[in-house]
Each structure stands twice: as structure tokens, then as C-alpha cells.
């Protein structure tokens, strides 16, 4: 059995340890917010956080997640309400086809957790591992910058 937490909820499952975390999230746990794009670590669509660090879930063997805290896009909302970052993506029209959006949100969330008041370059660097074929990135960057909390 492999035990870890997903979005704060303990899970314990009987899966081959070499299976991709991405497949376990989507197929076993039915958390289909996390998308598969390239399947080889190039596009970032499958980004999730493991113990606060953004990773490509297509490149993690689920056995490696044992004992970890995994956060997926489903875990961003609070009591049924969208997180400010998710609302900002809507307000800034930062999603078109939507395939990259969960990964963008997770990369941005990781950035804002560590750097609450990032510069535009910080934002570009933080999402450099996430490809979007629709928006041209500008609206995504604006949405993330709108969620800055300035140091006082």
C-alpha cells in the first residue's frame, strides 16, 4: 500500500509503485483536473505540488509520493469558492482551451506561496515550464500579477 495525502485528505492505495502519479490521480482518484499534455516533462500541463514544490506528475512514480502532501488544482478552492488565483484567471481571460490552465495555476500557486510579491520576470520564470498554445501568455501573467500581496 502507498499512503500520502491529496489536497489534505489521506489516501492509501494498492498501486504499482512505478505507475505515474498523473495516472493515479486521474484514474484511481478521479481527480481529472490535472491534465496530460506531452507526457515527457516538456509542457507542464500535469503540474501538481509535492510538499510545496511544483513538479510534473507525469515524471513521478507514485511510490515516490509515499508520505508526501500532494496538492492538485482541485485543492485550490476553499469551501466551494474559487481561490483568488482561479478567479483572476477568469477575470483576465487567461484561459482559452483550458488544457494548460490547471498546470499554470499550480506553478503560479507555488510561486505565490514562496514569493507573495513577485516581479513580472519572476512570474515569467515561474511559468517557463508551462506551455500555452492559445493565450500568448500575456493574460496569464497579468492574472498572476493581480494576485500579488505586497509586503508592508
Amino acid at each position, binding site marked *: 500500500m502507498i499512503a500520502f495525502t491529496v489536497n489534505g485528505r489521506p489516501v492509501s492505495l494498492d498501486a504499482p509503485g512505478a505507475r*505515474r502519479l498523473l495516472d493515479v490521480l486521474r484514474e484511481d482518484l478521479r481527480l481529472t483536473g490535472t491534465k496530460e499534455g506531452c507526457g515527457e*516533462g516538456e509542457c507542464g500541463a500535469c503540474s501538481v505540488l509535492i510538499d510545496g514544490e*511544483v513538479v510534473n506528475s507525469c515524471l513521478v512514480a507514485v*511510490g*515516490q509520493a509515499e508520505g508526501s502532501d500532494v496538492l492538485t488544482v482541485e485543492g485550490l478552492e476553499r469551501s466551494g469558492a474559487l481561490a483568488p488565483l482561479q478567479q483572476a484567471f477568469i477575470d483576465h481571460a487567461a484561459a482559452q482551451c483550458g488544457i494548460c490552465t490547471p498546470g499554470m495555476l499550480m506553478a503560479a500557486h507555488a510561486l505565490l506561496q514562496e514569493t507573495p510579491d513577485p516581479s513580472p520576470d519572476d512570474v515569467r520564470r515561474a511559468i*517557463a515550464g508551462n506551455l500555452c498554445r492559445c493565450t500568448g501568455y500575456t493574460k496569464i501573467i497579468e492574472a498572476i500579477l493581480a494576485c500579488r500581496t505586497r509586503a508592508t
Partner: protein
Amino acid sequence: MPYPRYLRPRALREAVELLAATPDARPLAGGTDLLVALHARTIAPTALIDVGKLTELRGITEADGALEIGAAESYTALLRSPLVARHASALADAARTVGAAQIQNRGTLGGNLGTASPAGDTLPVLLAADATIVTDRRTIPIAAFFVGYRRTALAPDELIVRIRVPRDGRVIRFRKVGTRQAQAISKVVLAVCRDPARVAVGSVAEVPLRAATAEAALARGDLDGAVEAVGRDIRPIDDVRSTAVYRRAVTQRVLRRLLTA
């Protein structure tokens, strides 16, 4: 699809025993190369031996006039380490160019060595630094580590434990040329030191290499000669990322810049 077994030893000794006892097992650390190959079925190991959390493979410390880096330390750990910044800043420069945050958080220095891609971004830096590979049973000078295309001097059951970088104050300059700043596999990647003379280049041959005649010219203070010679020291090819002609021209241009800027 049949999955390889996933095994997580609790200590280095157990990991090495498992590797020796399991034919066609592969050590797994960050997984950023291995999981790609596994999913694409270009490899079919019988087992993955997860060494990523072994304490023996972790930590960045100073010891005996050297910087010692655990093989399972991530690129993110390298680029955040004050010790790496102080004693091997080119290694942090290289780590910063690997993939993007997702890859930097998972990929490891030992993995970059073990995969031994000619395009491995940290490898020219380790060559220019005269790093030593400490395994579970011996030490291997990096100059003897790369023996062929993605082949290393490691025995099948041998595990990279630490990487030792001499702390001798040498100044190494690094430059990677790719299609974009992030998520790019190198077309050319260089690490250069004036004293001692080191010219290490990746993505220009079947292995990351030191340019011997360029280094000899550099040691004589002949910068023009070094730039000219490096064009003969390398063996670039045309492939999906670039052409031999471009790689040779860029290697020479970048070397000149690194030597004169």
C-alpha cells in the same frame, strides 16, 4: 502495461545489494529522464530502485578542501545553496538553465551524470572543475567517467553517491545555447576556465568532452589559437536540434566571448 517493481531501500548498502541482486534494475532519483523513457517503453527495467531519499546521497557540505554534493540533490538545491554559490557558482548557473521549476525541483546532479547525455547541462561544468565521482566502492575522475554515447564507467550495480568538486578558487564561466531560455535541450553548452586552462563542451560529440588542443593553446595564453582549435576538437553532428556547422560556429564564438568578456 507491465510495471517494473518499485523498491525503496532504506540505506545505501541495501540499495547496492538490491542493484546487484536484480538484473536489469535501474536506480531512480528525480525520474525526469527515467520516467520519460519508461513511459515511452524505450527501456524496460525489471525494477526501479528508489535512491532519491537515501541520506547518504543527500546534503551539500565542505570537506577536505572540496565541496561535496549528494548525488540525489536537486538542481533547485544547487541553485539555492550558499556553498555552491561561493565555491562552484558555475554549477548553479548550469542548474538554473535545466528545464524549468518542475524539472529543477526533481532532477538531480547524480542523475545528470548517470544519464550521461552529451547535452547534460551540468556536465561541462563538472569537467572544467575536475570533479570526482564518489560511488559506493571507489572514486572516478570525471575525465574518465564518460566512455561512450550515454555510457559511463559505472558498473551495472554501482551507484553514484556524491560528487566532489575541488575548492581551489578556479573561476569557471558557463554558457548554454538553446532554442529558448527554459525547457531547452542544449545545441551547445560550454564551461571554460582560464587558469587552469579548461574548455569543456557538451552537445558537440557523443560525450561531453574537454577540448584538448584548445586547452593547450589557452594554457599558452593563445586565445585565438584556442578558438581556432576548439573547432577541430569537437565532433558535432546534424540532428533535430541543430546542425554541425551551426554548432561549430557557435562553440567558437561563445568560447571567444567567455574568454574575453
